[in-house]
């Protein structure tokens, strides 16, 4: 009788404990319904191109030429590719040691890392060292690599993570057998954070023999969208210095800013502005990607992290782990190079590039508004404005009957609501429980990415469903139809 080789019981517990709602129950149900022929609007993940956003033309031209360098030898290539795309393709190919098909340096092509460093310097006004910049297959891989270095066990290498958070953090900490200490963002204060609460959490942890070693900030926030002010960032950096925490700055949405009061400021800039001793002591790792912004090139899997004040021998160890994966994919490295050094005024492709980029950003800004206002027009829904990133995270006030019904169905209340929303309207969201929220408070996350022309209809569809849901489960006094 043959033994079971790998069954559910013997699977690594860490794997079983890990949850990633973004592609969890709701998404799987939506995919099932789609197979049955139902029209689904996937707003579960920040995946702009899947909802009709067009790729920027210039980078695609450059990468197409890099994919097929023999085109560059063809005398007719100038007929369908502009001269600056051709020049740029030649430039990036010269940075490789054998084109897109050769493993690069495990940290990424030195030439591209130099361009990233130059970008950071222009953005922040402080020098950046290419040797401390590692390119990765998406920012997620970088986050996983860094968390893997920090987490030693359940009690040591513990990570402070915002709630609500993008569940890459909780899922990865689970997988690595670590521990997550949440710090709650305050919804009524525009998702602000209170450093005093943070301090208490860390003190409590320490008193139980737990070593907290890192703090994650997502700026602009996901799913919450808030943009941190400079004062906030200063407070956070000082806190990390006092508590000896490395700050993990997830800044992948830095191009997605929809208000003018709080433009994006990088954690690195603020740290450097604060001067010595903090600028020399606080450890910081900053993450960026080609998946978001106005580029939305999710499928390329391109990202980087920049290390500040990490000792050289530790950097070597991080390099060693990167080398086991040999190298990040080279096409995405070129996308990254293009993102950090886009067409300049005077370049042939400049006008088109600006037109396309502005078009996308301005539309996102409008859609952020449409969606926030749409949600807020429902009596039982409160929605903070999407200041940045790509999501709307409305709070849905569920009546007791709904919560009862959810319990009877064996579902968490917001999952219950989102499943009903999906089945009624085809809108596939992610329940707030997938991101963490305060006890008894329910949200859902949707993206602001559906095409602008379709937004009004989508919001109407949502409102209709919500009205019907509240009719069915409401107490008929507090939640009248609009």
């Amino acid at each position: 009788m043959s033994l079971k080789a790998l069954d559910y019981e013997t699977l690594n517990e860490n794997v079983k404990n890990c949850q990633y709602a973004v592609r969890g129950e709701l998404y799987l149900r939506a995919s099932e319904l789609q197979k049955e022929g139902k029209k689904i609007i996937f707003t579960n993940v920040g995946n702009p191109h899947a909802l009709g956003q067009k790729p920027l033309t210039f980078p695609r031209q450059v990468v197409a030429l890099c994919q097929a360098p023999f085109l560059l030898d063809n005398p007719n290539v100038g007929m369908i590719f502009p001269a600056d795309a051709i020049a740029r393709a030649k430039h990036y190919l010269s940075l490789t040691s054998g084109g897109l098909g050769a493993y690069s340096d495990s940290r990424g092509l030195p030439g591209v890392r130099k361009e990233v460093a130059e970008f950071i310097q222009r953005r922040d006004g402080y020098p950046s060292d290419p040797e401390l910049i590692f390119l990765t297959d998406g920012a997620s891989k970088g986050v996983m690599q860094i968390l893997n270095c920090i987490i030693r066990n359940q009690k040591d290498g513990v990570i402070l993570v915002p709630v609500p958070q993008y569940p890459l953090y909780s899922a990865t900490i689970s997988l690595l057998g670590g521990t997550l200490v949440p710090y709650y963002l305050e919804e009524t204060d525009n998702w602000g954070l209170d450093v005093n609460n943070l301090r208490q959490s860390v003190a409590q942890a320490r008193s139980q023999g737990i070593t907290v070693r890192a703090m994650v900030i997502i700026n602009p926030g996901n799913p919450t969208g808030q943009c941190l002010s400079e004062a906030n960032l200063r407070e956070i950096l000082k806190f990390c210095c006092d508590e000896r925490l490395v700050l993990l700055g997830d800044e992948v949405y830095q191009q997605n800013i929809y208000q003018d009061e709080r433009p994006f400021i990088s954690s690195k800039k603020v740290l450097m502005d604060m001067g010595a001793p903090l600028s020399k002591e606080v450890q910081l790792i900053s993450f960026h990607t080609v998946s978001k912004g106005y580029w939305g090139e999710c499928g390329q899997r391109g990202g980087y992290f920049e290390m500040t004040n990490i000792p050289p021998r530790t950097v070597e160890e991080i390099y060693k782990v990167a080398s086991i994966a040999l190298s990040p994919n080279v096409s995405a490295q070129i996308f990254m190079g293009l993102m950090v050094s886009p067409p300049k005024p005077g370049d042939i492709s400049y006008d088109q590039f600006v037109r396309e980029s502005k078009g996308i950003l301005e539309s996102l800004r409008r859609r952020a508004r449409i969606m926030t206002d749409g949600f807020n027009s429902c009596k039982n829904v409160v929605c903070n404005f999407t200041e940045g990133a790509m999501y709307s995270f409305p709070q849905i006030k569920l009546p007791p009957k709904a919560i009862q019904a959810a319990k009877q169905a064996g579902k968490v209340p917001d999952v219950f609501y989102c499943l009903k929303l999906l089945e009624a309207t085809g809108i596939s969201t992610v329940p707030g429980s997938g991101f963490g929220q305060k006890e008894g408070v329910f949200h859902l996350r949707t993206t602001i990415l559906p095409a602008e022309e379709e937004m009004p209809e989508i919001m109407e569809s949502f409102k209709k469903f919500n009205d019907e849901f509240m009719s069915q489960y409401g107490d008929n006094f507090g939640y009248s139809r609009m």
Partner: protein
Amino acid sequence: MRRFVIGEAKNLIDQTRRRPRPHHNNIRLLSLLASDPIPVSSSRFFSDMTGSDSSSSLPVTLDSINPNVLKCEYAVRGEIVNIAQKLQDDLKINKDAYPFDEIIYCNIGNPQSLSQQPITFFREVLALCSHTALLDRDETHALFSADSIARAWKILDQIPGKATGAYSHSQGIKGLRDAIAAGIEARDGFPADPNDIFMTDGASPGVHMMMQLLISSEKDGILCPIPQYPLYSASIALHGGSLVPYYLDEASGWGLEISELKKQLEDAKSKGITVRALAVINPGNPTGQVLSEENQRDIVDFCKKEGLVLLADEVYQENVYVPDKKFHSFKKVARSMGYGEKDISLVSFQSISKGYYGECGKRGGYMEVTGFTSDVREQIYKVASVNLCSNISGQILASLVMSPPKPGDESYESYIAEKEGILSSMARRAKTLEEALNKLEGITCNRAEGAMYLFPCINLPKKAIAAAEAAKTAPDTFYCKRLLNATGIVVVPGSGFRQVPGTWHFRCTILPQEDKIPAIVNRLTEFHKSFMDEFRD
């Protein structure tokens, strides 16, 4: 200026490792456990150090990072390569300081970095998929073959919205998996299910995923061949498991003996290790042997009997250079023995990095997962979903590799010429280098039946071993460093792959350009002679 609400002090210690429950539904992610003690027994790893050193000023230092990271090693891009890179930089400014004028990297299977050309048809399709606007232009027909245009359309039709920049399904685009499954069936004669395919950024992430699933503690062991490609040892170390070695027999062409497997399995059991899987690399890396079908049948039976998952690393399946051997996939072997889903758990890895396509930098590959219950497969899917998906360009390439041009297609002739050109050149280079190495004093080298490497055995004289010890270096590393400094040739010491204790090897790729091989042989021969002159007993 933001106002901060001073909330109540909350005791917010969360544990993402909860006590085991029968269902892992999508319950509320973070539970607040105010005063529950932290379960200590289920910790996977205890550090020797008692948490952070409160007197150290930085939170993340060598002393505080994950010890598993410190433990793991990966020699393919290790010490020797670092030295080589420094030499290369220095060569640019101090040309005359060295007895060679270029560094030749023979340490890594990276064909296109050594001037191997990509397959034209594949790159045509990729370029069209990269910039789909090309397909709307008339001029495109003058620049691209008709069948590459047709294939690009076919692929784009399989991608929702033709959006190659969107995250795909976490297992990879369905239509591409269909093509891969069809390719597997054409190769093996047995059906493959696209739902069994998980596409990954190269084969390596797939290996990591399986190690993650299989390893819960150092009590979980994985049987690995010695010598092995150090992804396995590194991955096992990173995941906190135990590597259980089984030695390949150099004297019989790196043969794999079932008796050796049994012996190592029993040995591990007696040490309290639960062996969970058997990793087999076929064709072998660094050893290059291609297993016989009979051998493979014995291995399949062994895994079935002992309840082990068979991890079949088959990334070199298209690299076979000898007429008396042929690649057979473990899936084919198992199915032809009448073993189905309920009989054997098998994970087969394939990559676009090797073969004749050599697309290392694109990072494409897949694992075909068969013989697991659906609840285990859901977990595999879940882990894959955290990273969302593998890069689309690599996915497209993987589907092209598994369903290349067919006779009658416009590009078929040129495709076949390119493919055969590359493979026959590899076979020639393998032979030339093998013969050259066997001529050297004290060196014996098994033939490279497949893969991309030669792994000669050097019988180092006692004086050399003593000199190595004095230099605090492993003897094979000592030899390799000397080789590098004298010739600019970069190889990887055998200790990076592990070997029978007391034996010394190095791994050298067969990939330098064919016209450079004679010069390499000369330099190597000259160096070896002077090394032996210096250290001969």
